């Protein structure tokens, strides 16, 4: 479904992604693992073309994304949830969801506001509240719900467990399993190995913008030296 071929991305002169390639198949839930600064967020932004790769190819369902503006990428069915949440703090919960709304698309689950309130009951209670009046966990739910309003076929979740309370992290894990059950393809960037193992099928480990490992968690466990080299703090 998603295919990255030899991606090189830069921030100014800093070389962030170095010849990165991987594939994600339809229906998979994949974890993108690595330390702070390894290039996880940049990978997601490179897919969205928010940080357009300087060379290499990004393909989504056989169509080339490289060079498109971000809104076209989103319209093709990729939903992006940024790590810093970036909800519209002056808008109400309902208005935030409205901004994300896109028409239904074939081959992807369709979401309504009421369905999303079913998954995130806290949001339903606060539907008329402004974004800035909400807690970090609630904001994290809102940003996921907002992206789901676009009925994406592929969801990019950038560090969904970061900076939220453990009880919410658990809720988040259930949510992601629910999304998987709906047939959504998901890529999650994570530093929390336990969380990643609980919700995903496969791990891709990157370090300094290069792919170091790509396989199942069983395979990863068979090679503790990889985990120690690229994930241990």
């Amino acid at each position: 479904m998603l295919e990255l071929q030899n991606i090189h991305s830069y921030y100014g002169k800093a070389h962030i992604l170095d010849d990165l390639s991987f594939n994600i198949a339809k229906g998979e839930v994949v974890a993108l693992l690595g330390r702070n600064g390894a290039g996880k967020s940049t990978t997601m932004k490179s897919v969205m073309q928010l940080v357009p790769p300087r060379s290499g190819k990004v393909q989504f369902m056989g169509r080339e994304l490289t060079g498109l503006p971000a809104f076209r990428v989103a319209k093709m069915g990729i939903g992006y949830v940024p790590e810093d949440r970036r909800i519209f703090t002056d808008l109400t919960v309902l208005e935030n969801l409205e901004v994300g709304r896109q028409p239904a698309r074939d081959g992807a689950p369709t979401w309504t506001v009421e369905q999303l309130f079913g998954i995130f009951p806290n949001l339903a209670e606060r539907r008329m509240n402004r974004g800035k009046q909400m807690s970090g966990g609630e904001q994290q739910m809102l940003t996921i719900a907002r992206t789901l309003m676009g009925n994406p076929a592929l969801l990019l979740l950038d560090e969904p467990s970061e900076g939220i309370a453990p009880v919410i992290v658990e809720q988040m894990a259930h949510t992601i399993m629910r999304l998987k059950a709906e047939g959504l393809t998901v890529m999650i960037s994570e530093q929390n190995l336990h969380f990643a193992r609980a919700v995903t099928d496969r791990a891709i480990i990157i370090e300094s913008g290069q792919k170091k490992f790509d396989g199942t968690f069983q395979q990863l466990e068979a090679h503790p030296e990889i985990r120690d080299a690229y994930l241990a703090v």
Partner: protein
Amino acid sequence: MAFFLAQILTGLANAAALFLVASGLSLIFGVTRIVNFAHGSFYMLGAFVGVTLMDILPGHVGFWGAILLTGLAVGLIGAFVEIVVLRPVYRAPELFQLVATFGVILVIQDLALMIWGAEDRLGPRAPGLRGVWRIFGEPVPKYDIVLIAITPVILFALWYLITRTRMGTLVRAATQDREMVGALGVNQAWLFTGVFALGSALAGLGGALQLPKGGADLLMDFNIIGSVFVVVVIGGMGSLPGAFIAAVIISVLNVFGVAYLPQSTLVLMYVVMAVVLIVRPYGLLGREEVAGEHGQVGAPERPIRPYGARGRMVVIALLAALALLPLVADKFILTLMIDVIVFALFAASLHFILGSGGLVSFGHAAFFGGGAYAAALLVFHTDTPMELAFIAAPFAAGLLALGIGWFCIRLSGVYFAMLTLAFSQLVWSLAFQWRSVTRGDDGLVNIWPADWLNATAPFYYFTLAMGVGGILFLRHIIHAPFGYALRAGRDSPRQAEAMGINVKRVQFAAFAVAGAMAGLAGGIFVFSKGSVFPTELEIAASFDVLIVVFLGGVKTLAGGVVGAAFLTGVEDWLTRLEYWRLILGLLIIAVVIIAPEGIVGSLRTLWVRIRHIEEEEAK
């Protein structure tokens, strides 16, 4: 009592056009973060297009139809301007965007001159609304009542659009984080175009609606822009209800000003603005600007260095050539060179706070004109010797800068720019309306230098010494610890504060120094011309110097000086052409889009590239 009521009604009627134009400006700013200086031009276009359409279309339907069609037409023109001029510069620094819109002003001025000619047009009366209604015995024009009724309807329609529709929701979201809106699948480019078109259409509507009360002329654009900015600043930038309240306050105040204090109408609104800003720095309903929002990251500044040995040699050779100039040049050349040096010092002073301080001042003419007026007033009223009056110029301008800076430095970015512009308008309106002291637009004349300087060559040397001295003084400060602190505050205010630099105080001091140096230039200017007029304090004068700094190159120290030399030289032959504004405007827009580094910056890039190629070949 009846008279009082009639006055209020007139004020409310006048508020209609002002609110329309201001709401458009506020809307555009709220979403695109661009301060559209060409907004007055759309208002003027609205008036001209409206007059033309009303001539063609007959009767009631024709009149109101013409107004709606005008809104549509000006909206389309706005969309065209947004796509062609502004789209390429959304990611550029604020100053570039402002300069681009200034280029648009010049282009529209000359296009309007080409199409409609230089003669003022009187607006037609609204059919069926020619007479007056008597309210408590006082006559109130029927059209005024209609305007009073229309304004709240438009305010409500805009409020509904912004808060209750999908487009409005997207617009508000884009105001906060445009990149995220794009990542959610919204084509924000068209959103921006739509908002810009709507804002322009509102300005066009304002221009057409005011026709029965006024008319159409080629000065409308600059004449309204001062009041529009005051309204937007008082109301709070980006706030529509704020713009409405402020438009009503200013218009009503203006009507009473005309009735009771006719000599202070212009000053009054700036005083109100100052009072409001002391209490609420971001306007009545505005909110504090949050620094470092998403999706607007500027390129890092290139560090500046003092000239090396070769650079110094060039400067010394240039100065020597300038010193020897009177031996070979005639009077005309020397006079031109005096103008160049005066303008170069003026530009260098703006460049000082703009380039090194990062403070985009839109009212720098207040200090140039202020210095000129200070010296001229001393000579004119008290026969002060020229030497003393001349020294007073930088001091007076520096004091003025301390006063204005006290209000402005608290704000930053476009708020700072708007506020400096508004204060320079305050100074201008003082010079224009305080006739007993300043003689208004008759200006102060016969301000000649002392006998020992009263010939072209000696005055040229005097200008050279003062001008070059001033410029070197500014350069010296930039390379001194104070300059480091100033640049640190520009690049990273928080980091600088954490290192113990009082950023605001450093900026305040720099603002005063820049003001004083502009005043020095003004002092030279007034004695070289022998007179001073309020035009030296106009918005256009502040824009001129901004253009010069921009053309020269903001990020290079020599930018201001080179830009001034270039423009003064080119102006001489350019202004002989009939449509020189069009050419200059297009040139400015082209520079903004194609060569945003300015003359000096582009030359340097070219030089680096040539050297690079040579090195490659050498290998």
